[in-house]
């Protein structure tokens, strides 16, 4: 039996596991509702108050990021999905059953990651496109809209989905390291929410250097249609986030290899 065959069967097994628990399904639903629903709510509010905006506001208005604003909330849902894929195995003890069936721990981690990222990539892209199109439909006629015909706009929407997919991978990596749902979720939320608050206490010149490295800032840079001040460009931001994810996953997999289950 070749290794490829084994990897495929492990992936198949992890896919059955991923879609057969409510936490993944609920996580996806919460994520979709938050992204699309909040996006619709925010774009609707902007449309109904559009005439109160100043000329400058109107000129600098970004119809893309506003239609995707629900992501700010929804990003926590995708992180939790990634965390639970592994931490629920530890909390229930099923990790021992899993490892008895698949003793090759690298293969197990890889299979879980592939299933998680592939399915979440599809979900995140679909949800981001729906949120974008819903927002533009709500703006239509009153507020300036963006079109997917523009290369930058298309890139923004696609990278929004990529950002969220990478967050699930980051959550999965944290779950591998910490093995506990509560601890992993706390760290994940801290990285996205508390880190930016802490940076505010730093001197201004440091802030500018630091804040662009924050995961949430990287996300905003990836979704920006035009490059933001004091921030990375979209592709550089993607690269930096990828490095984070790889480092966390490498640490998590090394620990999985070394520790007793």
């Amino acid at each position, binding site marked *: 039996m070749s290794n490829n065959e084994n990897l495929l069967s492990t992936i198949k097994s992890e896919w059955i596991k991923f879609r057969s628990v409510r936490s993944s399904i609920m996580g996806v639903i919460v994520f979709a509702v938050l992204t699309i629903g909040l996006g619709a709510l925010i774009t609707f509010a902007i449309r109904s108050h559009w005439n109160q905006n100043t000329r400058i506001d109107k000129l600098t208005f970004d119809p893309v990021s506003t239609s995707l604003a629900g992501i700010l909330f929804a990003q926590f849902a995708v992180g939790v999905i990634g965390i639970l894929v592994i931490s629920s195995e530890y909390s229930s003890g099923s990790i021992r059953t899993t490892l008895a*069936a698949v003793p*090759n721990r690298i293969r197990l981690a890889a299979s879980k990651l592939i299933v998680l990222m592939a399915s979440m990539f599809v979900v995140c892209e679909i949800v981001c496109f729906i949120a974008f199109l819903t927002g533009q439909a709500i703006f239509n006629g009153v507020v300036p809209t963006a079109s997917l015909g523009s290369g930058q706009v298309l890139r923004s929407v696609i990278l929004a989905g990529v950002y969220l997919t990478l967050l699930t991978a980051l959550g999965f990596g944290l779950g591998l390291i910490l093995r506990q749902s509560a601890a992993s979720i706390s760290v994940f939320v801290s990285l996205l929410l508390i880190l930016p608050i802490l940076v505010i206490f730093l001197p201004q010149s440091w802030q500018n250097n630091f804040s662009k490295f924050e995961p949430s800032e990287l996300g905003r840079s990836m979704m920006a249609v035009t490059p933001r001040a004091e921030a990375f460009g979209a592709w550089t931001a993607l690269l930096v986030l990828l490095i984070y994810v790889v480092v966390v996953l490498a640490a998590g997999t090394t620990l999985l290899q070394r520790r007793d289950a």
Partner: protein
Amino acid sequence: MLKIDHLTKHYHDVVAVDDLDFEVKPGVVTGFLGPNGSGKSTTMRVILGLDHPTKGRATINGQNYADLKSPLREVGALLDAKAVHPGRTARNHLRALAASNQIKKSRVDEVLEFAGISSVANKKVGGFSLGMSQRLGIAGALLGDPGVLLFDEPVNGLDPEGIRWIREFFRSLAKEGRTVFVSSHLMSEMAVSADQIIVIGRGRFITQGSVDDLTATAKGTVFVRASDTQKLTALVQTHEGTVQEINDKGLTIGGMTSDQIGEVAFNGGITILELTPQRASLEEVFMDLTADSVEYGSTTLGVAHHE
């Protein structure tokens, strides 16, 4: 065949398993007996590659567990029946296991049927009783039709009917030529369900043998009813014997065989009314063997006994 090769496992400063070395042969049910905390579960976890040994190793048919290509086809194990994701149905749990080792989907229904849980196959495992979870664990262990089977405390949570079922099940697995390794802290359970017994205490090997071997090694006692109890007591004590118990029925004598007692009585002119060698129960043997190695022993409280 299962081989434990000078296995030692430390958890930080705690020595859980200390130089265990034994083989578990196919065709018989081998009991793995020891008090709680004696290292049975640790040994099982090392066999399955879940915990890394500090020294030594455990092999299945000469191979490390981690090197098995499709482990579920060679080893079936039930360690902790509750170690299943509570939100998944029994069938999906087994289907995922089957998929990981390229086992046919139809096998899932076969083992569900065999374990007697077909009717709850589509129910979430979280709602299962311990007995139902044990049956699901057994179904999982059988999934790959393996030649080696490990069960850690399998009778826990089973009702009497389930216990009887599982004993017969172990026997039938062994009869088919499989290696069956069952741990328990209940000697009475091992006495009826195992052919061979390996006894450990505090992580160390104590003894190994058949149930008969183990009880034979223990010093038995002899129950005697005689015409003159007092005289016999005195005579016995002048020999090697000790009178362990006197009541209105008779004497229980240790340290002498029934032949020796008979001779002593004859020479003393005492009429023997009954002379019955008493075999130590496996339970007594076990208590004897592990008396020094109980991790969490209880001491007698200072309560007056009324006898």
